[in-house]
């Protein structure tokens, strides 16, 4: 059974998608460690270290995603999590922007997969199953 850490980063309180991701990932056979909303980079990393996680799924809905995710990958590497998959999704930037540009900004920050608004949990599950095979 693969372990995934999920949570909502920064000063973000959007809880609905997080609760639904929890339910769907659990249903799909993952061990879900949900650190909930208002989580800092450290909270994600601590949870991943403690549970020996295979992947971290960062949600950011409220628009500050770009500010909140800076340096996340570096911190992961520092904490010995270089092998851990890093996804980010939600409404990760402010406003309607060209998706290609947004995606590559986040890939440059070290995220393995970057998801646009309204991604269905099924897509996340498919990708995890593929990447963690």
């Amino acid at each position, binding site marked *: 059974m693969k372990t995934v850490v999920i949570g909502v980063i*920064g*000063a*973000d*309180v959007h*809880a*609905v998608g997080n*609760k*639904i991701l929890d*339910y769907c990932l659990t249903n799909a056979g993952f061990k879900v460690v949900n650190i*909930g*909303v*208002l989580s800092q980079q450290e909270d994600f990393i601590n949870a991943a270290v403690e549970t020996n996680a295979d992947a971290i799924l960062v949600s950011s809905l*409220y*628009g*500050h995603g*770009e*500010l909140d995710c800076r340096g996340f990958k570096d911190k992961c590497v520092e904490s010995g999590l270089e092998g851990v998959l890093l996804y980010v999704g939600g*409404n990760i*930037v*402010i*406003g*309607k*922007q060209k998706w290609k540009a947004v995606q590559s900004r986040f890939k440059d920050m070290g995220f393995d997969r970057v998801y646009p*608004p*309204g991604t269905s949990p099924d897509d996340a599950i498919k990708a995890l199953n593929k990447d963690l095979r």
Partner: protein
Amino acid sequence: MDLRNKKISEEKFLKMREEVLASWPTGKGVDLKEAIEYLKKIPDHQNFAKKLKKAKNLDRVLIQPRAGVALEHQHIKLLKYLEKVGGADFLPSTIDSYTRQNRYEEAEVGIRESILSGKSMLNGFPVVNHGVESCRRVSEAINVPLQARHGTPDARLLTEIIHAAGWTSNEGGGISYNIPYAKSVPLETTIRNWQYCDRLVGYYEEHGVSLNREPFGPLTGTLVPPCISNTVAIIETLLAAEQGVKNSSVGYGQLGNIIQDVAAIRALREQTEYYLEAYGFEDVYVSTVFHQWMGGFPKDETEAFGLISMGATTAALAGATKMITKTTHESIGIPTMQANARGLKASKEVVMLLRGQRYATGIKVRKEIEQIKAEVDQILDKVVEVGSGDLAVGAVEAFKAGIIDIPFAPSQYNAGKILTARDVDGAVRILEFGNIPFDEEIKDFHYNKLEKRAKKENRKVDFNMTIDDVYSISDKKSMIDSENEWWKNENN
């Protein structure tokens, strides 16, 4: 706990103020005496409380957008545009999420980054960092009343600054700006914080300045049944009245069934007035706020227009005083000012068309009103009971016991046991009550409504219904698929 629903004494309040104003440098900019003089000079049509009162005679719903960006000059440009092009009757300043969590240093970073990158890197206007002078330039740049809209558990400093700046309304409340907006802030703390905010308004009122207060109605915006949101709105209005608030707007977020939505707004107004009187407050002016659908929005902009305009129609039929509009960018991100104005314009077209029209008081609406009222009464009775007669204590205890329970709320102080789903007509009903103290009659009512749907769709009443309904407004694909099947079926 030493929390009490009791007006803070002036002496104590003035002492508390010192501490609050000292918590960030811009607090120094607030001079209460000067602020009172400043506020008195604001003309009636720019005063939120007064414009709301007058609206009663206009016979149409007034409209207000959400809007806020990081920098002053851009924020002013945005608001002016929404007034001129969108035809907004009221304007907002949506506050950024760092400020909401009192993380003013991070807000400062956001301001700097916004200057550097040339675009707003914050999801709102960081009012505390900008301070009183800047905020006055904002309100002076426009011709309609201005309100702060946020989601701040501790908004004391923010409140001091905006009112001193001539912003004549503030959204929020000890429950509604905690449970949906925080994870680990005790309810006791936020109720206390908001008693302070309300006391400040009371102070202004005592000195001849009318201000409006508005609890945040929609809570998590996601399948919240009317009985819960109305209960919270009524409690917050009563707590505010105790501190001296005289002009309250109670809000409600559209659910989608027109009968339920119309009934909810009517029940909300009537019960708020009823309870105010019962608690001895006879001079509080009540108005209502209808929020266009607050949950996940359709991605397609045209579908979004349909949803927005349908919401506007409902608000008009309900006779709400004010409506908060959405935009066709909702599902993607903070709207451009153009998209924001379009949301206003489509909404305004509808409320202008429907001027003077109301939903006839049919039997179905009346039944639904009675239903909601009975539910609110049962919850409120229990709240007062567990608070041993004190509403503030009761609110804290009620959340602890799950007597009030908000679906999908992030707060650890929320029981999180309630589950809701839509019935065959799209009205939101409760499938799992947790500890909400309903009698069997009410429980059966909800149960039967959902059973009817389960039968129709040949499925069980369970959490999967809730999940489907989280998506049912934003994504109609599955509904369309099943319709296509239906047409081909010989037996319908």
